[in-house]
């Protein structure tokens, strides 16, 4: 997916119903050459509204009030086997654009509560086994990295992730790190 016409391609690919394998979501412009077997979604190039948090979608069996690019992306999140996040880490959390995108994924959860590992949680609609790789960049302290890792663990409860991995780097190192990870979406 090219940077110039993200919106067009998102719609086109949705219409064609191509088989989703890997999905890369980034909040920073990155070269797509590192992820040749994935659909790369750059949050700076798509249109999505902020979740209002009223949980209306859970009352309507996953139908979100907003009809925007997130409608398709949330569907892709259910269907793909490898998800890669490239995000800035701030105070041990995702940065605002990424957090806003994640909040829209509440549609991918069941409204009902289930007990898993002694904790109440919402199960994910899709129970397809998948892997999550998170590349967090920015100036984060050790403590913030710990918070971020715990956040990933908490957010994947109720979903079928076979592995959740997080790597951290400085912003200037990101290109190099992506180069190291290049081709990981081929595995």
């Amino acid at each position, binding site marked *: 997916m090219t940077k110039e016409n993200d919106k067009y391609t998102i719609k086109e690919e949705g219409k064609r119903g191509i088989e989703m394998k890997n999905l890369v979501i980034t909040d920073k412009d990155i070269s797509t050459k590192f992820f040749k077997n994935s659909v790369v979604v750059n949050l700076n190039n798509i249109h999505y509204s902020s979740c209002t948090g009223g949980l209306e979608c859970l009352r309507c069996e996953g139908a979100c009030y907003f009809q925007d690019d997130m409608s398709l992306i949330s569907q892709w999140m259910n269907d793909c086997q490898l998800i890669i996040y490239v995000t800035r880490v701030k105070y041990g959390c995702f940065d605002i654009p990424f*957090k806003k995108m994640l909040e829209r994924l509440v549609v991918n959860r069941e409204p009902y509560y289930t007990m898993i590992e002694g904790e109440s*949680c919402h199960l994910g609609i899709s129970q397809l086994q998948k892997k999550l790789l998170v590349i967090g960049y920015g100036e984060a302290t050790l403590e913030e990295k710990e918070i971020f890792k715990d956040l990933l663990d908490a957010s994947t409860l109720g979903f079928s992730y076979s592995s959740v991995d997080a790597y951290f780097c400085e912003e200037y190192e990101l290109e190099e790190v992506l180069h190291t990870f290049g081709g990981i979406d081929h595995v």
Partner: protein
Amino acid sequence: MSKILLLSSGLKHAQEFTAPLLKRLEVYLSTQLDCVDVRNISTFDERTFFEYDQVVFIFMTAMDTIPSSTLEIFQKLESQKKPQTQIYTLIACDEYETEKCDLSERIVESWCKNEHLQYMGSLKVGSILLIMKGPSKFVISSYIKKFVELIVKKEKASLKVSCLTEKGFLKKANRYWDKQIKKTKKAKNK
């Protein structure tokens, strides 16, 4: 005399779930202090932040952590000059375990550390969708009173409250969603 700001910083419609808690907090604080301001994400002006001695952030977690609307407030405040304001949080989550609010608290703490603000603790509320509907609302009122006393005395807070039992929560919460879904279906069919 302290000047206190109660800031409802949750997502726009999630503020409806925390509104009863905010109201009680405001009423109890107003009986003890003269200056209690209540703002939300759309009425908050970051330029006035330095005027307050204590600020209480009130929000419901979104996708297991702090909502983006609160992060936006943090970002706005980054560029502001701030005195040693005391920060408290009232965090609510829809799950039974109040531990689900811990991550959000750690993030607020991390922000306070970066901004040289004094983090003073929290009141964590679990089962927020149900807790104000049954007799448990009397329990929560007493917790809010305790929280207010700590704020007024400028003492550290670490309070948590949820539905009485886990089993009761599961039963009631799933029945709640059943009702909500049926109600929406019925409204759509009309």
